[in-house]
């Protein structure tokens, strides 16, 4: 796994987080939370664009042609495979996974790679409000299922204690390794992560996830613009009629 693979994983996860946030822009428990969901969705989609733009300066872009045809080529976590059906899933992603991605961005900004130091800093300011939103809702109490799943996937995403993320920390490209990243989000949220046993041999180091799967077909089609084309065709036919 290269350093670009890690940056692509952050980008893909932020893209999916943004999309899933946006799906709740009219379904959250209050009007303010609706607006926050929309705003955070826009933020994270914007962050993913910046991160994709960092791949070329990093020297290698791991994105292949399979991204046009295979949803499993995207490097998002299982948590984003399907649209969320419960507000608790939103809150757990907002509080735990968004904070995990932010911790990794902090590690990039604090690391030795110039392009990441320069381009990612502004994200940390915007993420402050995502964190306040997630932590406050988490404190109000959510079901343990989504919460524990989010913790598991955050720990898996940081990677094994002796893996590539730890190596990037040792060589200075990241200012934090897996243990420091986990400690960072525990400190920020003011809670300890549940005890999680990860089968690292079954872990996919490219997609940074412990189980197979992929995002739903509708979302994948939307990402490729196919949904837009479908509606464009029907509106053109309507004009002819």
């Amino acid at each position, binding site marked *: 796994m290269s350093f670009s693979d890690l940056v692509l994983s952050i980008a893909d996860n932020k893209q999916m987080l943004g999309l899933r946030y946006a799906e709740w822009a009219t379904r959250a428990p209050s009007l*303010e939370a609706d*607006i*926050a969901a929309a705003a955070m969705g826009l933020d994270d989609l914007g962050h993913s664009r910046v991160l994709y733009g960092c791949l070329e300066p990093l020297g290698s872009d791991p994105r292949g042609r399979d991204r046009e045809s295979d949803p499993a080529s995207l490097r998002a976590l299982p948590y984003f495979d399907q649209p969320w059906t419960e507000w608790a899933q939103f809150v757990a992603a907002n509080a735990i996974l968004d904070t995990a991605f932010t911790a990794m961005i902090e590690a990039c900004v604090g690391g030795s790679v110039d392009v990441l130091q320069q381009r990612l800093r502004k994200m940390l300011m915007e993420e402050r409000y995502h964190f*306040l*939103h997630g932590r406050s809702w988490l404190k*109000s109490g959510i079901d343990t299922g989504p919460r524990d799943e989010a913790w598991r996937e955050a720990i898996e995403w940081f990677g094994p204690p002796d893996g590539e993320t730890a190596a990037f920390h040792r060589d200075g490209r990241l200012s934090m390794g897996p243990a420091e990243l986990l400690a960072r989000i525990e400190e920020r949220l003011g809670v300890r992560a549940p005890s999680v046993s990860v089968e690292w041999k079954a872990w996919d180091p490219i997609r940074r996830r412990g189980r197979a799967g992929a995002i739903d077909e509708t979302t994948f089609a939307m990402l490729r613009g196919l949904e837009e084309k479908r509606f464009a065709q029907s509106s053109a036919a309507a004009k002819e009629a």
Partner: protein
Amino acid sequence: MTYKRVSGDALEYEVFARKTRLEPLHQVGSVVAPDDDLAMAYARATYDEERWCEMAIVRKEHVIELWQPGEA
């Protein structure tokens, strides 16, 4: 688990902002939230469409009124 429209005890916050250092803060709106953290997140999300150089929130209950319309 069910959620109330606003979790916990809802508080009202007034939102103030300004675009330049030369102008005073003025009220741009309000939000309802159960705590200060969420109120900050909501204020930023709701009123961030302009390029403010400063934004602040105040709990409505902390505003001391001298008089109201019709009382002066």
